[in-house]
């Protein structure tokens, strides 16, 4: 449970870390769109090169980033298998009854798998290099125009940052309670579905009790410091765009230009 790296912040300091979170949010969306635009493996190579640069310039390393793929392995493998066996394009390479593998199927299967992997890697660059606090700050700032039409931008971002903040705490708490009940002979691993669901009661009841207690204490602590919502609230860290943000936008724009050129030229 503790080995899930997807969505986890990796503390550090580099060009990417110092980018404005708004820039990073928008550019990540742009990058994801780019992954979908690409029609060639050369295009994927271009994006992968960019991911490599991100991995090494931040000292995160590719190995650590690839670990984030682990929870999605099943989905990627399933997509790969479905495309491989069900696509009927090009020459037939092998066939068993209704199932056949074609050259087009192989290409599509690899293409889709690479696309999924790149999607995960690109979105990981954002979460790994942006602390949850600045991420929600960036979101709040981007959503602010919507508050004119009554959209609760501040409340949503506050809820998100609190939720993000408490995920590790609650995971730790779950682990603690799980161990305590296991020490009392609780068995969470065997039995049929109903037995397993019932075995969760000794875990979930204390967890809910403690989550409510924490929520209560947090609300009290926030009120004690005069929190009353977003109106008129100032920020300690003001978000400001720098030359870096311009450079980053330029780099992504260049990648777009290249990608469109690749597609127009029809390279593989």
């Amino acid at each position, binding site marked *: 449970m*503790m080995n899930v790296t997807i969505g986890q912040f990796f503390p550090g300091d580099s060009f990417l870390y110092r980018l404005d979170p708004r820039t990073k949010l928008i550019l990540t969306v742009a990058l994801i769109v780019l992954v979908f635009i690409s029609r060639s493996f050369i295009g994927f190579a271009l994006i992968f090169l960019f991911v490599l640069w991100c991995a090494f310039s931040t000292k995160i390393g590719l190995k650590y980033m690839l670990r984030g793929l682990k929870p999605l392995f099943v989905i990627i493998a399933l997509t790969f298998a479905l495309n491989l066996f069900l696509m009927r394009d090009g020459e037939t390479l092998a066939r068993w009854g209704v199932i056949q593998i074609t050259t087009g199927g192989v290409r599509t299967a690899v293409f889709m798998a690479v696309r999924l992997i790149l999607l995960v890697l690109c979105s990981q660059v954002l979460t790994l290099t942006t602390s949850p606090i600045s991420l929600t700050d960036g979101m709040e700032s981007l959503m602010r125009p919507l508050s004119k039409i009554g959209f609760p931008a501040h409340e949503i971002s506050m809820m998100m940052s609190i939720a993000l903040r408490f995920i590790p705490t609650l995971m730790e708490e779950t682990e*603690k309670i799980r161990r*305590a009940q*296991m*020490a009392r*002979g609780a068995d969470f691993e065997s039995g049929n579905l109903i037995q397993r669901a019932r075995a969760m009661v*000794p875990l979930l009841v204390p967890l809910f009790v403690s989550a409510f207690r924490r929520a209560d204490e947090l609300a009290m602590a926030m009120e004690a410091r005069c929190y009353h919502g977003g109106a008129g609230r100032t920020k300690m860290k003001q978000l400001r765009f720098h030359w870096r943000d311009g450079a980053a936008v330029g780099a992504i724009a260049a990648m777009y230009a290249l990608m469109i050129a690749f597609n127009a030229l029809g390279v593989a």
Partner: protein
Amino acid sequence: MRSVIEVRHLTHVYMPDSPFEARALDDVSLTVNEGEFVGLIGHTGSGKSTLVSHLNALEKSEPGTVFVRGIDLGAKETKLSDVRREVGLVFQYPEYQLFEETVERDIAFGPANLKLDEEEIRRRVRAAMELVGLDESLREASPFNLSGGQKRRVAIAGVLAMNPSILILDEPAAGLDPAGRRGMLELIRGIHESGVTVVMVSHSMDDVGKYCDRLYVLSHGKIALSGAPAEVFVHGEELRGMGLDVPECAKLAAALRARGFDVPGGAYSRADVAAAILKRFGKGGDAE
């Protein structure tokens, strides 16, 4: 003396190969003998809690081995339920694990997991409640309506109802007021006197000095000092270096020694130090 727990060269690393890698235990070896009251002391983050998890097979012992009554906890054929029946583990703030509607049913959770018959479970629940000093009338009460100290007693009763021959407690007195603290420690002394081998994790030197036969001091995942309380408390400087301290009376004894008074090096309890002072100043008589 027969050893009931043997830990040999135990090392534990959390989240290896990640930036969050942490070495919680580093080549730890220790022994607990039948009927002993052993104290495990260390600063926050010294690896105490990880170590006690190993003693109940909640963590895998690799590299290193842990034996409980001769059973190798790392071995594949070892049934974990046998180990957990033998070793009762009470975590820090155990009251947070309560979940049942009534005190009785919560205490019965452990014995029920051992698949005992109803008559036996009822008998054990009653015995455990008596041992921890919970009144019969609380049997039908909701554990969530009790006071903090009572909740903790319910949680400890829940472990005792499994009849462990070894009881391990992680900071049993944490967060209790002075009276609750004394009550809790006296309760543990009573459990020990009923024939249970006790391992208590604590960072209060006064508590372990008063109750334990033998101490292990953990620092940065290593056993830094071990021995009888008197042998450990003479290392005042080292203990302070680890973010720990010595009992108040041992400090007084050390200060007197430094001024050239004849106070024995092993004196740390109130009675011993008072006796030494009275002897030095020639009054004699009752130490307390």
